[in-house]
């Protein structure tokens, strides 16, 4: 029972790291970035190359994956995304889904289409028992890492100068500009961090979710569910949604394997009927 809960939390945390970047771009910047999963995939493959081929330690690989994906994020944001910020959501969807297909084909061409795995250190493999609860070491690592990240993000958003600038830019970009905030730079940095987190999530998740060129398409639905259920006002919403979905998915599949696949969709439908804006929606919208 507790093992199921533990697995569910780990899975939920992983979903959160993967999806929180999306909730930031969608919720705070009002930009639909379906290519979010492509950044996650990039992070996974970067770690793979660094760890398996160049022999870097696993944790260093994770850090570098975060940085490089963030850099790619800035590059794309400055050269491509900036042109579609003002466009309609349909344009944004078409544009970013195009990017997804290009990324799938590009990775297939360069890395091959087969499933790949990142070599993780022996200390992280296997599991141990605490008070009769089986705890997977790797899943524990995920919970700890993601928990720390969530805390850090929440602190940055709510109580730093950058956080308040970001919130100001989102609420009213024009006034924020008038007050001397460099809105473009704030958005670039936010986008970079969001992409970097996706990259980190992709690298961490490769062990559990697997990694192949169709990654961004396979998991797009899960990211979107997290964001829809969670609402897009803060990062608390997606965090709660990720945990809810992670635990419900794992528990549903354990106790009722036949209906396991429907559990998360059922939750999504119920939440959206009761709270169309998501669990933690901003009261007033523009």
């Amino acid at each position, binding site marked *: 029972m507790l*093992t*199921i809960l533990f*697995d569910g939390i780990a*899975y939920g945390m992983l979903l959160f790291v993967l999806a929180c970047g999306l909730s930031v771009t969608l919720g705070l910047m009002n930009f639909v970035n379906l290519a979010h999963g492509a950044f996650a995939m990039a992070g996974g493959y970067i770690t793979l190359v660094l760890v398996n081929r160049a022999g870097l330690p696993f944790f260093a690989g994770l850090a570098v994956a975060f940085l490089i994906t963030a850099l790619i994020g800035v590059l794309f944001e400055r050269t491509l995304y900036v042109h579609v910020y003002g466009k309609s959501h349909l344009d944004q969807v078409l544009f970013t889904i195009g990017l997804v297909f290009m990324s799938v*084909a590009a990775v*297939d061409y360069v890395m*091959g*289409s*087969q*499933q*790949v*795995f990142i*070599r993780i250190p022996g200390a992280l*493999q*296997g*599991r141990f028992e605490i008070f009769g609860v*089986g705890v*997977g070491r*790797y899943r524990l690592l995920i919970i700890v890492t993601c928990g720390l990240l969530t805390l850090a993000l929440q602190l940055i958003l709510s109580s730093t100068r950058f956080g308040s600038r970001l919130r100001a830019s989102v609420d009213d970009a024009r006034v924020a500009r008038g007050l001397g905030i460099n809105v473009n730079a704030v958005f670039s940095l936010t986008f970079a961090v969001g992409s970097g987190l996706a990259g980190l999530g992709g690298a961490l998740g490769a*062990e*559990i*979710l*697997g990694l*192949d060129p*169709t990654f961004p*398409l*396979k*998991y797009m639905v*899960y990211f979107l569910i997290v964001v829809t259920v969670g609402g897009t006002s803060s990062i608390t919403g997606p965090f709660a949604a990720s945990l809810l979905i992670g635990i419900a*998915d*794992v*528990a*549903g*599949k*354990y106790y009722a*394997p*036949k209906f*396991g*696949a429907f559990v998360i969709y059922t939750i999504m439908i119920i939440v959206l009927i009761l709270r169309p804006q998501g669990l933690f929606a901003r009261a007033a919208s523009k």
Partner: protein
Amino acid sequence: MLRIIPLVLAVGTMASTGALAQDVKVGVVLPLTGGLAPVGKQVQAGIKMYMDKNGASVAGKKIDLIIKDDAGSADNSKRLAQELIVNDKVAIIGSALTPSAMAIGPLSTQGKTANVVMVSGTSGVINPNNPYMVRTSFTLGQQSGIIAEWAAKNGSKKVAIVQSDWAPGAEATKVFTDAFTKAGGEIVETIKVPLANPDFAPFLQRARDANPDTLFVFVPAGQAGTFAKQFTERGLDKAGIKLIGPGDIVDDNDLPGMGDAVLGVVTADIYSAYHNSPANKDYVAAFKKANGYRPNFISLGGYDGMHLIYEALKKTQGKTDAESLINAMKGTKWESPRGPISIDPETRDIVQNVYIGKVEKVDGELYNVEFATFEAVKDPLKKK
């Protein structure tokens, strides 16, 4: 002036059909893009390997190969197959995975076109309703029945089954369950996993809690590595549970990247890149040189499919009507890189050796090393 145009067109058409009379058109519909692209690429590579090795002419005719990409969706396969049959007038059509082969089947019957199924492992694809279809791939039943027999003889008594919830998975489970219970074993739990499934944790935990001594698994090849990793992560190997399945789960395409978690997995396969025969050594060497990766069991469907087409054309001396071709194909026997295979004259399905193999590390790379052979296995779901 305008009146001349139809005339010119007519002459042009005559001229081109005249030139084509010497050619035999072979149209193959494969998924070359999208999630199933690895499958299509292996088949394509197998076909090209055969044609490179044996030349592009047979029985005085040139083989004109047309490959179409259906991106893995069966309605595309149907449309493309129709174009191939009606517009290109292909003599032989090649089809791939189960949904696509099912979609193309009736077309090949109506259009009286020989249809060689190169990938599908579902028993019902080759059936009495579609008399112009033959198979050069395998059926999951062939492998699942054999691994059940083997497991029952080698100490497995209580088996839990984890199966992807789609037609081939259901077939694998059915054949395995029948054969295993007949041999006196017990199935303690059957768990169906959604086809698109990110995390196996809950299913594995459930399987573990059922206390089996062996776990039979059928998931699509791309997921097998993840599955095996989580199997060891959860400590099922340490709990003394053996992992077995059909050869699909140790697909040579994915095996090198799966990691040491799959060491010791026992499967019943129809082909392993490590299969010990001179024909296979040549095949693997040439394949790796041309493509840069290992051939897997799927590539053989394409390679042997071409062989069957060549042999049939030799027998009919170039006649390409479906009736003669299929009759020529029935009962054909040959030595493939996977071992001796033949086409059952009664069912038009493939008969082949099934091998029991275990994943081992050879020269630092993971291979499925075969250690026992069951000869000339037919599809168990077609036995009467």
